[in-house]
């Protein structure tokens, strides 16, 4: 079969690095995985129960393209309370199939062919391909271990061109767990204003911050609301990955444009997930609190263990990943991950899966039970010693 059957812009997108690794891990038995980017918690029972109840009541139809009005009102209240930005549930909020769809909609709604999009790296694997698929040009801005992988406005200044249209942010960050200090976030806001950029901010991990770090959204900074699309969802904080519910909040004209694409390609997010999401927002605080505390303890454990084993590991303030420095082993990220898997049956993800600037690091997820984490780090310590 000739590959020319496939559209060129799709053919040119490289296969995800994580995918190759996944297939090897899947083919092996008894692997302990620190490679999983989703909570190990099952969706809290009160949320599942609410979804079951909605099914019993026969709520199985389409919803408004923008999402259930009650969910949009709940989102509006939640975002105002936790992020200090007000959005009108009538025309400034759209419910999507996960944040992934919201990112895609926003980029397709904003980009003309050849427009450049800045994003910080290492980053979530889908940013660059999604930009390319929307006709944009992805421009990675590396972040540095010395800065704990936070983004510097100075680094953005070096990468911006007259063609730059959009800046993508993801704090707390997958894979590094980085969070942005307020003063630097203010500089980035000023940078966006200066160059007249739209900011696309994926804040999916925002509930998961530790050590009294308060999460700040760039959308809440003065003058930013009108140029920011705020993206959030239920997968991480509420342990609802499989429900596929996210949302975007932004200026009405952009939400309207995103809705146009959404209504013809998706129609609406599944109603079951939307019903569950209402329960999550209105009564999920206690469950989030419990999971966050558990993540914090696991992070402390894994950071302490790795450092004692001679693998330098900063203690990130957000998300559920640590990003240890494995350069001391003399191996590349990929070599380290494959050899560790082979020798000790522990899966971690090579830092380079999240962009070239992840070289020298691996991502370890602590969204896994403490007993598994303990076994995994013991084996990693053994591996590094030998």
């Amino acid at each position, binding site marked *: 079969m000739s590959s020319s059957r496939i559209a060129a812009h799709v053919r040119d997108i490289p296969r*995800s690095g*994580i995918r190759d*690794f*996944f297939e090897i*891990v*899947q083919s092996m038995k008894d*692997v302990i*995985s620190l*490679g*999983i*980017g*989703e909570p*190990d918690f*099952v969706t809290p029972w009160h949320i599942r129960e609410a979804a079951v109840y909605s099914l019993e009541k026969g709520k199985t139809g389409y919803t408004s393209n923008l999402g259930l009005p009650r969910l949009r009102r709940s989102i509006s209240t939640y975002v105002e309370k936790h992020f200090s930005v007000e959005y009108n549930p009538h025309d400034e909020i759209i419910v999507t199939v996960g944040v992934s769809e919201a990112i895609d909609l926003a980029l397709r709604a904003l980009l003309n062919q050849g427009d450049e999009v800045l994003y910080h790296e290492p980053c*979530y*694997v*889908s940013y660059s391909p999604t930009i390319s698929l929307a006709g944009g040009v992805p421009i990675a801005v590396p972040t540095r271990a010395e800065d704990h992988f936070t983004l510097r406005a100075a680094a953005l200044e070096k990468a911006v061109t007259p063609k730059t249209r959009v800046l993508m942010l993801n704090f707390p960050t*997958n894979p590094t767990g980085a969070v942005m200090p307020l003063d630097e976030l203010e500089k980035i806001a000023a940078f966006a204003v200066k160059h007249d950029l739209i900011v696309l901010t994926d804040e999916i991990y925002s509930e998961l911050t530790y050590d009294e770090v308060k999460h700040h959204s760039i959308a809440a900074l003065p003058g930013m609301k009108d140029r920011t699309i705020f993206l959030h969802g239920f997968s991480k904080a509420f342990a609802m990955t499989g429900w596929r519910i996210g949302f975007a909040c932004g200026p009405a004209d952009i939400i309207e444009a995103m809705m146009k694409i959404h209504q013809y390609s998706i129609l609406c997010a599944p109603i079951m997930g939307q019903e569950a999401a209402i329960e999550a927002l209105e009564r999920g605080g206690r469950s989030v609190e419990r999971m966050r*505390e558990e993540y914090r*303890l*696991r992070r*402390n*454990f894994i950071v*302490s*263990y790795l450092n004692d084993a001679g693998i330098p590991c900063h203690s990130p303030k957000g998300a559920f990943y640590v990003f240890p420095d494995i350069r001391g082993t003399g191996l590349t990220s990929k070599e380290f991950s494959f050899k560790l898997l082979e020798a000790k049956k522990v*899966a971690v*993800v090579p830092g380079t*899966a999240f962009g070239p600037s992840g070289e020298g690091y691996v991502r370890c997820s602590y969204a896994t039970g*403490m007993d598994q984490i*303990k076994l995994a780090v013991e084996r990693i310590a053994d591996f590094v010693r030998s």
Partner: protein
Amino acid sequence: MDGKRTLPLFSFFIIHPSSFILFPMDSLIRILRNNSAIPRADLARQLRLSEAEVSAKITKLEADGTILGYQAVINREQWDTESVTAVIEVRVTPEREGGFDRIANRIAGFEEVESVYLMSGGYDLLVIVDGRSLREVASFVADKLSTIEAVQSCATRFRLKTYKENGLLHALEEAPERLSVTP
């Protein structure tokens, strides 16, 4: 006290309720309430303390009566199918001095009594009694509990099945499968 042994697996521990207010040790207590069998070394890493510091904190909590003991949570249906548990609603006449305390302590002193709580509402004391048989519990209620002078009435109910105890479900749930590597 012999209750202070650390027991394997599903253990929990008993603390004095006032400790929630008095001690800034929330994390330590939360972890121990869920799993008191956790090794000290793991506790230390989770709390970013040294092992010695953790031990000192626990010793203090034990000494001041915040931690009263460590027990395993047992699935009785698996281990001991004969014994019975009675939940007894007791109405008592409070005393002019001391209210319910002296009577409650008197009831609590019996070995058969597992727990005693002062309640609001239609009765005063909730007494949980463990016995090896129905007959043993009946005899305790008839001979001991109901003959205490201040006790006006007892309404005894028997536990039929346990679904959840101390935050633990009795039916073990199968962990749902997750993909082994995801972005």
